[in-house]
């Protein structure tokens, strides 16, 4: 049976698909969030060096991961939109940006809260902190460029170029701890060696990472739906939808 992969690249069919998917991801994110926070704050043992303050990693690490990952995803979809002129992928990229910026901000904010008891300072000009800050600037640049352009197609393409140029920053953030060996501690979890933390801590963190994933997907899908409606408001299927909503 031939599957039509491109069916959902049409905004109209994606709109209904996203509508069905959103509740699933919302429920999943709420369950995972509750479970993750419970494990993080009640089950995981106290760290012998850092005391209770280490528990901020249950929010900090997932947020930092998501901030980088979402940027790559955003640049990927923006690039696809630029290369193949697909409307939906550009809309999707636009929808990702605010969530990514939010996670970047959370990562910086929780990092500052953690830095105060641990390093004795809210902020240091350390390589990883600085490059994460640059990431926030990149998100803001992307969003303000798109906001400044009235024609949505031009906004998509211009945003795609700036997003792709900014991708250079991601490996710099990711490897900054290894390259410069500054104040920020090394990665707590890595693929090719045993994690340097207790299993329950790791579990809590991974559950929180999953929760952030589910949350991001739900929010981004929702935002994409809104963008679709906004841009396609002149089409017949949106008019039909409007009629149906009015009846209900």
């Amino acid at each position, binding site marked *: 049976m031939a599957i039509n992969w491109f069916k959902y690249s049409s905004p109209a069919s994606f709109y209904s698909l996203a509508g069905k998917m959103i509740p699933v991801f919302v429920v999943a994110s709420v369950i995972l969030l509750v479970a993750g926070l419970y494990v993080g704050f009640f089950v995981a043992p106290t760290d012998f060096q850092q005391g209770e303050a280490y528990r901020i990693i249950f929010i900090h690490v997932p947020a930092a991961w998501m901030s980088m990952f979402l940027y790559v995803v955003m640049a990927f979809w923006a690039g696809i939109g630029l290369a193949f002129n697909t409307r939906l992928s550009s809309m999707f990229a636009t929808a990702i940006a605010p969530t990514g910026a939010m996670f970047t901000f959370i990562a910086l904010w929780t990092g500052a809260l953690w830095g105060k008891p641990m390093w004795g300072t809210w902020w240091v000009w350390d390589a990883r902190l*600085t490059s994460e800050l*640059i990431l926030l*600037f*990149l998100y*803001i*640049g992307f969003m*303000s*460029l798109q906001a*400044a*352009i009235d024609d949505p*197609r*031009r906004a998509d*393409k*211009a945003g795609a*170029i*700036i997003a*792709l*140029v*900014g991708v250079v*920053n991601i490996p*710099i953030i990711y490897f900054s701890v290894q390259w410069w060996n500054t104040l920020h501690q090394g990665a707590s979890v890595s693929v090719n060696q045993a994690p340097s933390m207790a299993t329950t801590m790791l579990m809590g963190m991974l559950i929180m990472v999953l929760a952030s994933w589910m949350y991001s997907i739900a929010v981004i899908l929702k935002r994409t739906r809104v963008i679709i409606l906004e841009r396609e408001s002149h089409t017949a299927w949106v008019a039909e939808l409007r009629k149906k909503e009015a009846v209900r």
Partner: protein
Amino acid sequence: MWIIKRDLLLAVRRQSDVLTTLFFFIIVVSLFPLSVGPEMNMLRTMAPGVVWVAALLASMLSLGRMFSNDYLDGTLEQMLLSPQSLSLLVLGKALAHWLVTGVPLVLMAPVLGIQYDLPVDALFVLTVTLLLGTPVLSLIGAIGAALTLGLRGGGVLVSLLVLPLYIPVLIFGAGAVEANMAGVGFDAHLSLIGAFLLVSLVFAPWAAASSLRVSLE
């Protein structure tokens, strides 16, 4: 190549533009001793950073001129239609921008460094890093200038887009001078700036050319 000549000729005909950028650079650098106090030890440690930040701002402020005049009188559209590769045209324009704004900054930097009581070898390193770094600023700036062409509030927007991308050049440019003053080798910093230059020479004209196509669609 003809485009470099043309842009330079335009710049010579309107010298005030070039001089404005240069004097902006000088004024910004001179503001710091006035605002933080004339203590020589502190100024010496601040000097590389101050000169680099001022160079960044000066080169950014003049970005608007790179394409906007040609855009307004329609020349840019003709350039897009010409059989010449657009990337090469952009490269030419970026190099002309560097010759007009970057080179005067590089030449002026040692003089400003003396104001800050930098030792001679630090002055030398400062000039070399600026010589390597300012073309990167013009090349990256070309992308931002092309993207914001004809937008309202383009001037502020271009700074938001371009300054984050300038940061690595700033860090290693000022870092090289500091490393030299601390008595550590600065080769690594210089090599990194050289790498930025090569990478941006290859990719920036291409990215700026596609930005121009987007903006002029």
